[in-house]
């Protein structure tokens, strides 16, 4: 099993190979030449039945997964980078709908990358959460 990602098909294959991403139901696709991550709504991901709302941990896990795959995609690397820290701000509750995520590599040195993440539902300009993470590369 290789994690060399050169195409979006490779990215989808890598995502499929991550058990936790499959547990959540994560999908990824190309949008304007960049990876777009999608978490189709599943009742299993609900963490508040009264609102109802997607579990905050699911949003965090979805974003952490997106960052890892985006980093491999951007570097055409073969290894899954190790997470150093992760910090998430919850801005709105995420309703029972599909969730989307995009990543931006803010800085990437030889050893550490800083990634900015955003998750939204209907409007990318109204994120439900933003996050920042550091990864150790290779």
């Amino acid at each position: 099993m290789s994690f060399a990602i050169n195409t979006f098909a490779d990215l989808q294959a890598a995502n499929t190979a991550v058990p936790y991403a499959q547990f959540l139901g994560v999908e990824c696709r190309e949008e304007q030449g960049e990876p777009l991550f999608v978490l189709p709504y599943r009742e299993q991901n609900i963490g508040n039945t009264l609102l109802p709302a997607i579990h905050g941990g699911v949003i965090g896990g979805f974003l952490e997964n997106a960052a890892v795959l985006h980093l491999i995609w951007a570097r055409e690397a073969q290894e899954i980078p190790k997470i150093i820290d992760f910090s998430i701000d919850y801005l709105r509750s995420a309703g029972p709908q599909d969730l989307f995520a995009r990543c931006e590599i803010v800085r990437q040195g030889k050893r550490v990358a800083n990634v900015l993440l955003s998750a939204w539902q209907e409007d990318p300009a109204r994120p439900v959460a933003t996050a920042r993470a550091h990864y150790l590369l290779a």
Partner: protein
Amino acid sequence: MEPGWLPVAAPAFFEQVVTRGLALPHCHALGLQLQAASHGKTTLVLPFKPDWVGNPLTRVLHGGVVTTLADSAGALAIYTLLTEPESVATLDLRIDYLRLGLADLPLYCQAECYRLTSQIAFTRSILYQQNPDTPVAQAVATYMRSAAPKGGGR
């Protein structure tokens, strides 16, 4: 339920919150269990499943399960101090990943609500597998309290 969590502020209320909280669809899917609770503190355990793996080559646990466990344990720690239904919403959560999480072992989270104000709850957590002295991760989170009785919703 274990008698070990009797010192919580309102045992009958806390039992209701735990029962409903662990039955929430995602918590149920993870199989989260309460191991201990006392005034301001909870220990939750996430039994291992192959689904938690984040790296199929090394079988290291995915950070997402750490995040979900910390968020849930922190919220429950707040309810050990409450006596009436209310909702708490996570404002932010920060996790430092100190060691790799290993496959085939359960993951524990000891969470503490170390400051509760009329509007905000501050929590900190240690996540470990074999020994709390060698944690996998450390987390801090803040939550907003809401008087609206949506309580038990999480």
